[in-house]
């Protein structure tokens, strides 16, 4: 089963922490959303400037799995953001955040000559010759 479970592991941990306590419940200081402590918690997003913005902004509506499948130019990422704001109810990010998102996404999920992940043992792209 390829639908995993980084999120599931985290939930298991939290439930153990909370349900396992008899009586009172101890909490960390009320704070903003807990910052991921290690790479696993970043859902596979590679390290880089803007990762945090992407992590929180993009998961508002959908899984990061969708983001990680993309390989788009900065211009195309820009178009996608605009489209999500227009068609999908995304809150327009403020210019600084938008810039941060675009920088990260076009660097780490930019166009590649490689194949999308998940093509596995399929044959390489069709052409043994160059134009």
């Amino acid at each position, binding site marked *: *089963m390829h639908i995993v*479970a980084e999120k599931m592991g985290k939930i298991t941990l939290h439930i153990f922490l909370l349900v396992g306590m008899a009586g009172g419940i101890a*909490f960390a200081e009320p704070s903003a*959303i807990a910052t991921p402590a290690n790479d696993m918690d970043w859902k596979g997003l590679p390290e880089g400037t803007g990762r945090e913005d992407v992590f929180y902004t993009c*998961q508002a509506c959908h899984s990061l799995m969708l983001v990680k499948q993309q390989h788009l130019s900065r211009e195309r990422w820009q178009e996608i953001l605009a489209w999500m704001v227009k068609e999908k*109810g995304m809150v327009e990010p403020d210019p600084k955040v938008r810039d941060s998102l675009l920088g990260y996404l076009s660097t780490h999920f930019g166009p590649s000559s490689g194949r*999308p992940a998940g093509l596995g043992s399929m044959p390489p792209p*069709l052409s043994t010759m160059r134009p």
Partner: protein
Amino acid sequence: MADHGNINKDLITAFADNPDKADRDVFGRIANPDRRGFLRGAGLATMTAMLGGTIIPFADTMPSGFIPVALAEEAMGMAGKDGLIGLGDKPYNAETPAHLLDDEITPTARHFVRNHGTVPDNVDVSAWTLTIDGEVEKPLTFTIEDLRKKFEVVTQQLVIECGGNGRAFFNPQVSGNQWTVGAVGCAQWTGVRLKDILKAVGVKKSAIYTAHFGADKDLADPEKPVLSRGIPIEKALNPGTLVAFEMNGAPMHPLNGHPLRLVVPGWVGSTSHKWLTRIQLRDVVHDGKGMTGQSYRMPNRPLEPGEKAEDAAFTQIITAMPVKSLITSPASGFKLDGKKTLEVRGHSWAGENAVKNVEISIDFGAKWIPAKVAKAANRYAWQRWQAEVAFPGPGYYEIWARATDEKGATQPFAVAWNPKGYMNNAMHRVAVRVG
């Protein structure tokens, strides 16, 4: 991992038995006196963390005792699906590896999942209703029991294929879920003909299109429909178009539309509306979510790879899917040891048309070997094919399959690039090493 399922079931049981206590124990929250929202910020942080750091919209109006649907889904998870490749866990999207689609009838556990929003929970089958209204003589509302009693119940094997199947192969890559070849299935669907329901309500002459509505919820705004597409009235009146309530002789998988859905066979999957609650007949082409802009539309002219086109150029609403085939054996990457011949088999389908032949090549199309193609079990079922290929010697080969339909349309090597990555019916290719 085995524990996890139990833990989440305990979560749901805890909330079902005593929501207030569960709220205190699990989230550490005590609801405001009006039973909404959090008194302590700590509760929100915990719930947020449990949802993987997602920003929770509407947190201040969340009723106490409420388990976010996302968590309930995780307890349910993709249970009942077997071996699918996940493209997304919110919303759920997963395709089937080709070699797991080998059965003539796609088992429920192997049928792909394509969701746009959240899956309805707490489905009460006996209370579920389907309303038919709009350009009709007499709008009616049916329960599922009504449908079973009033109309002839039929069972058909029907192909459903996602419009984006094959999207991953476009170059340059396009945005969206990167389906490869597995967003297709042919399960056995039981239901009643939409045609028979429409006869009962009386279709007005003014009706030219349907508009479909369901119970799934938009991720950004649960008040808006996630998706609302439709079909021309002629396809709605086609006897192959079913309102289905069973999949492979059992209640449908929740991710495949339980308890009621449309199956519009041979047409782009997004017309086969799931968790169906209403069909409205309209006197205009429906303009709901997923009908406008570039959604499920093709441009009115071929584009250069990577070319931009304005929305107005996307005039062709996608309807029937084009001729296509799938190699389900061998799996790509197969190693053939000690033999030089191999049985190759799979399925083929062609929208509104029957498949006339399927051919196999192991030398990039220099020579084509005809496969034996079976008749479809019924109209709109896929057709199995089978061939024996002989390799000239050891080495690395590609096996290609090419289907041709009764109108003479055949699968191409590649398709014209389009910005949404639709309609990729280029030939399926698997890699084999003969040693």
